[in-house]
């Protein structure tokens, strides 16, 4: 049996954005929504006009007609007491739907009112509500109804009123969340300042926001109301004078061996109504989300997309000549795109070409949104859902990664190319210890024993400057600081002896004091391990600290590339210059750069 609390609670934030659009009209254009509305409308019309439509009195028993088959007199036959099934079905529709609506109405009145009050005045009202809700939910709804039935009798209206009280928390939660959300938005404060009274604020702003979610919730709860009401009647605990689908089902079930056909009509009515209510609720929610601009499911068939890698060639600085190291990673005309709901592709990287040589540190610099991170992820082939390489090649040690299978990539990742993420705290699995997250990849990628991997993990933790390796090894991610977490991630990246490490803004999310330490650590490790590093950053200070060569990225393209020294000495592209200007403006923290324009040198830290 479904209970109230399992109904999917719509995302309030979404509804806030969608509240003002014309969702009703869109709902009629949604095929499932329309079908559900038609079924429900027909049901309601049948319920309203049951007196007119029913050929007979639904309670008039006739012994001669017991279990009579379908005939002119009884189009759907007669039941175990000889009552006309069609007439009973029509009246049952009326009472079953009315009973469910009655419960939902009571639930809505109690739930919305208390939700508005609790959300608006919070404090004590809130904690009282929490207790009331947990008391109501301490028992299965059916058990409460059975207990109530024991003393208040079989009246459908009384029973469904009790059920309405049980359902009220669903509306309460919804309204409460919406009110708290809206309350914190500026416009309510503004209205307050403008001298609009409390009641008017609630009326105008909050009800307009919760209206649609309440309708969705009401539809789902009405379905549950019908199920529970039918269930009670089916058990024989209802008022036998009121025909309902449950009563009909109960009667039919007792005669299942003689006339199984009688089961069909009430079953069909219950199933059809319940499904329509759920589909109506779902369709309304889908339309709300769509109106709020949430992307629809992406479609296939975008493979024919022709990538656009055209654009001006980057400014290329002449090589120093002393760098004869062989090329490890060669990216050519890389185009990365995301499939769009309409079927198109949104390009985020528009033909990037870059080279990383063995053992060098290569800086990929640009503002956020320039496509640096997307480039880094596509080299690892770890783009988010919907993203893919639509053009160009990624050649790593002679192998084209852009066209490698996932199985081949699994062998490359970790062992050949490693990755250091930007945000340390969100890049460790919160449910496993730090140690196990270091050990597992080593046992898989290097095929070493668990004990060996454990020993190496502890050594690595010590190597990256963690004061108490054993304690950190046994800790969970939420128990360490951001700086520690980033050291752990660096240890993880070097753990499988990769030839190339892609570091995506490894210091951006850290405190300024920790940033320098992490950069020092990276430089030390790079010196020791002679590993090539592609470091993604928006900070020329980082480039100056670490990099041998630089590629400057703007709007998904490389605009300037070459040895770091040469680019710092003589930036050609206006964008590169503007990036320089940006660090000159807030450059005080990084040393005497402001006065060094004539010397064309970098902050002296790089010489350390």
């Amino acid at each position, binding site marked *: 049996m479904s209970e109230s609390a399992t109904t999917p609670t719509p995302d309030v934030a979404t509804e806030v954005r969608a509240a003002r659009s014309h969702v009703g009209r869109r709902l009629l254009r949604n095929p499932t929504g329309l079908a559900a509305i038609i079924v429900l409308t027909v049901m309601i019309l049948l319920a309203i006009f049951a007196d007119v439509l029913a050929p007979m009195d639904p309670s008039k028993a006739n012994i001669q007609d017991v279990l009579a088959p379908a005939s002119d007199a009884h189009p759907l036959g007669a039941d175990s007491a000889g009552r006309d099934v069609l007439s009973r079905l029509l009246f049952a529709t009326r009472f079953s739907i009315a009973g469910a609506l009655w419960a939902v109405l009571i639930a809505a009145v109690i739930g919305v009112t208390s939700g508005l009050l609790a959300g608006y005045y919070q404090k004590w009202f809130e904690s009282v509500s929490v207790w009331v809700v947990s008391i109501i939910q301490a028992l299965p709804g059916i058990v409460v109804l059975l207990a109530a039935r*024991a003393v208040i009798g079989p009246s459908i209206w009384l029973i469904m009123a009790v059920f309405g009280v049980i359902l009220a928390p669903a509306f309460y939660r919804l309204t409460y969340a919406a009110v708290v959300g809206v309350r914190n938005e500026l416009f309510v404060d503004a209205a307050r300042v403008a001298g609009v009274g409390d009641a008017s604020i609630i009326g105008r702003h909050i009800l307009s926001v919760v209206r649609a979610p309440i309708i969705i919730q009401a539809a789902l709860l009405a379905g549950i109301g019908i199920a529970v009401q039918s269930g009670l009647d089916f058990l024989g605990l209802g008022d036998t004078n009121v025909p309902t689908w449950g009563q009909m089902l109960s009667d039919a079930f007792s005669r299942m061996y003689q006339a199984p056909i009688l089961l069909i009509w009430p079953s069909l009515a219950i199933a059809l109504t319940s499904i329509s209510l759920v589909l109506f609720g779902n369709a309304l929610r889908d339309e709300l989300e769509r109106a709020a601009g949430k992307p629809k499911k992406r479609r296939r068939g975008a493979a024919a997309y022709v990538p656009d890698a055209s654009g001006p060639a980057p400014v290329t600085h002449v090589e120093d000549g002393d760098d004869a190291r062989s090329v490890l990673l060669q990216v050519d005309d890389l185009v990365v795109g995301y499939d769009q709901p309409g079927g198109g592709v949104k390009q985020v990287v528009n033909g990037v070409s870059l080279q990383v040589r063995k053992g060098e540190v290569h800086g990929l610099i640009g503002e956020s949104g320039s496509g640096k991170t997307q480039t880094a992820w596509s080299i690892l082939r770890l783009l988010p859902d919907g993203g893919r390489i639509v053009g160009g090649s990624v050649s790593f040690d002679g192998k084209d990664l852009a066209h490698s299978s996932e199985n081949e990539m699994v062998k490359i990742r970790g062992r050949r190319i490693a990755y250091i993420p930007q945000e340390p705290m969100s890049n460790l699995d919160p449910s496993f210890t730090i140690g196990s997250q270091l050990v597992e*990849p080593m046992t898989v990628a290097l095929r070493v024993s668990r004990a060996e991997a454990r020993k190496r993990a502890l050594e690595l933790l010590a190597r990256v400057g963690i004061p108490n390796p054993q304690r950190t090894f046994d800790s969970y991610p939420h128990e360490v600081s951001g700086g520690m977490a980033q050291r752990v991630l660096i240890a993880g990246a070097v753990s499988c002896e990769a030839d190339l490490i892609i570091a995506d803004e490894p210091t951006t999310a850290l405190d300024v004091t920790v940033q320098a330490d992490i950069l020092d650590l990276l430089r030390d490790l790079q010196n020791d391990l002679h590993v090539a590093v592609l470091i993604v950053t928006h900070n020329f200070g980082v480039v100056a600290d670490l990099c041998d060569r630089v590629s400057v990225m703007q709007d998904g393209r490389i605009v300037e590339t070459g040895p770091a020294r040469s680019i710092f000495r003589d930036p050609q592209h206006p964008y590169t210059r503007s990036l320089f200007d940006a660090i000159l403006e807030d450059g005080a923290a990084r040393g005497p750069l402001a006065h060094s324009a004539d010397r064309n040198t970098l902050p002296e830290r790089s010489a350390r």
Partner: protein
Amino acid sequence: MLRFILRRLLAGVFLLFVVSSLAYLFLYLGAGDIARQILGVSATQEQVAQKATELGLDQPLATRYVDWLSAAVRGDFGTSWFNNQPVVEAITSRLAVTLSLVIGTTILTAVVATALGVWAAKKRGAADRLVQIVSVLGFAIPGFLIAIFLVNVFALNLGWFRPTGFVQLGTSFPGWLSTVTLPILALSTGAIAAIASQVRGSVIDTMRQDWVRTLRSRGLSENRVLYKHVLRNAGGPALAVLAVQFVGLLGGAIIVEQIFAIPGLGPVAVGSTARGDIPLVMGLVVVTAAIVVVVNIVIEILHGFLNPKARIS
């Protein structure tokens, strides 16, 4: 850990106290002339008065409540008004039956719902839509309707199962399995629908976490990350839904037991309700609320096992 369980148990006992007190109050205040109801219209005024004294109904409500509570704490819930059977005996003899049904359903639900949810989240496309359709149907169609359908098709028409009856789990496992298969299927559809869509949603959300990319960047295969890491993290929200579903299953079992004539708590609940046998109803309320309290504690412990952050609080 022990302190956590003790604190939860204490809160649970308090909740149990509040719920049973409220139930007692409502039941006795709501009931009319109880002695008259038991004896029927033909009884004389003297007989009714005598019955009321016999049941202690001539005492003030507060006195009766204190008596009931002090007896209940010692495990004595009185006797049924109609057949004089002790309430504890009437319930315990049937509790195991209902629990075997509900726990069997929970296990089936957890397995099937996880499989469906992960499958939908991983494959997306057609598999995803199929699971969503199944979820809507399972959510919308009441369990007892499915039970009636199953009886008709698999018991009456195909004859694969007996339509009614029950074999104790302790007597014969295959026998038990053949009598509970249809009831468990009927009970589990709604829960499977709810939990499968929860698992699907939280697996999809978890797959988008940064650490999934980082773990994969270390050379762990997508499946390894999915089944070991993502599933464990997605398990927490699914467990919360499972707890709610378990409460619903206890209620659903009452109706389904009636359909399959299973001698669990269902028939007791229906019978005592129809007759207004308040001591028995009170016993059922306390037992059900106690089960809910225990299940919630178990779920919280499991949640703490899955999610280390939840262990502290």
